């Protein structure tokens, strides 16, 4: 059993494959808690161990691990780096599945949904050949996200439903994944204006995220409930959830949630005619986009809440 080292503690001591596996496990655990900086440090350390061992298999695994962390941190461009090479070089179906999945996720989040679909399908084929239901479910959720990006809400709903069904049938503790899929499906239902089932799913997801201490998903669920209430015209009910999302995003460094929360709070304040508060949150949002100097004025002039999508 390797002795856990603090992040960044690579030394001249010879490392083993067990050291790498331990770092990978701890990195994933940090992702599950939403501890992004810790997961980044551990992924960096794992890559250094793989390099020190000059182990091609571990180097490929460390590339996909790094991509996973970068995607969680909201950096899909950096996450893409190295995955195509892994996909071409690896002879292992598990590594190929991982590389294709994270490549699809990265491309999707860069708006390249056509290419994302190709790699998501490849990941799905690898998952099928591995007969791995977890990877199949993960790929179905990814397909749901791709359909959502394309604006095909019905197809997204079906894909999320398949993912949910796969995960609920599995033995073991899959609450981390279930919270994310329920959040995605709930959000999709809200966009389809199916408020009752959407809010039920979002509240279930929020309760699960809190129960397992997954602060990242808790932030996303809070944001999505705020959006749902705003969409229903319930600005007062939206406010506490938007504030909770903002606080969690600030604490965890979740930039995308922070932007969305600033927008939601600005819009809530505008609807409730709290001009100073509205100004404050749209100013904060404006700071994220210095290249668009009139964004604040635009948002104060136009109500886009009924046609927006978040994340």
């Amino acid at each position: 059993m390797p002795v856990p080292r603090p992040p960044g503690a690579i030394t001249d001591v010879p490392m083993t494959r067990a050291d790498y596996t331990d770092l990978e496990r701890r990195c994933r655990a940090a992702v599950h808690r939403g501890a992004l900086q810790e997961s980044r440090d551990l992924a960096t350390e794992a890559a250094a161990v793989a390099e020190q061992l000059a182990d091609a298999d571990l180097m490929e695994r460390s590339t996909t691990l790094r991509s996973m962390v970068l995607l969680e941190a909201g950096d899909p461009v950096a996450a893409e780096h190295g995955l195509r090479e892994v996909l071409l070089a690896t002879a292992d179906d598990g590594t190929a599945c991982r590389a294709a999945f994270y490549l699809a996720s990265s491309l999707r989040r860069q708006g390249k949904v056509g290419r994302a679909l190709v790699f998501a399908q490849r990941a799905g084929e690898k998952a099928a050949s591995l007969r791995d239901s977890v990877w199949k479910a993960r790929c179905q959720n990814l397909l749901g996200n791709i359909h959502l990006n394309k604006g095909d809400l019905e197809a997204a709903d079906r894909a999320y439903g398949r993912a949910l069904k796969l995960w609920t049938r599995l033995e073991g503790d899959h609450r981390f994944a279930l919270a994310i899929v329920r959040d995605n499906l709930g959000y999709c239902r809200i966009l389809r204006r199916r408020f009752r089932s959407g809010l039920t799913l979002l509240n279930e997801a929020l309760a699960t995220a809190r129960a397992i201490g997954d602060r990242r998903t808790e932030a996303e669920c809070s944001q999505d409930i705020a959006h749902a209430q705003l969409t229903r015209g319930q600005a007062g009910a939206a406010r506490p959830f938007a504030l909770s999302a903002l606080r969690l995003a600030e604490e965890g460094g979740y930039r995308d949630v922070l932007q969305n929360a600033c927008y939601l709070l600005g819009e809530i304040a505008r609807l409730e005619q709290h001009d100073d508060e509205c100004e404050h949150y749209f100013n904060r949002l404006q700071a994220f986009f210095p290249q668009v100097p009139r964004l604040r004025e635009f948002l104060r002039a136009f109500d886009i809440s009924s046609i927006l999508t978040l994340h």
Partner: protein
Amino acid sequence: MTRVLRRTVPLLLLATLVLSANPVQSGGRDVPESQLPGSGGTTSTAWPAPCGDEPVLVWVGGVPYTVSLNPDGSAQLEPSLVGVWDHLLAETARLIGFGDTVEGSCP
């Protein structure tokens, strides 16, 4: 959808800046890897048919749509709901009066 426009906002400039910035955000969250190993289950999965080539983004009446080619050669037009900023772009485009005809561009 719109409220009273503040005339001091230079919309054309804004539209140019927003369009060039294109700060699109993603939709939905992908599930990162679990600490748990795969279950080895055998549930079958139905995969959708390939959508064909890269979808093309077009503007119709100021609203963004993606056009995808189906395997049989037909095309399908779907509203593009990729993020709040796309809608902001669409609304800007509609307000300044362009996009009434279909304009295509590869993403």
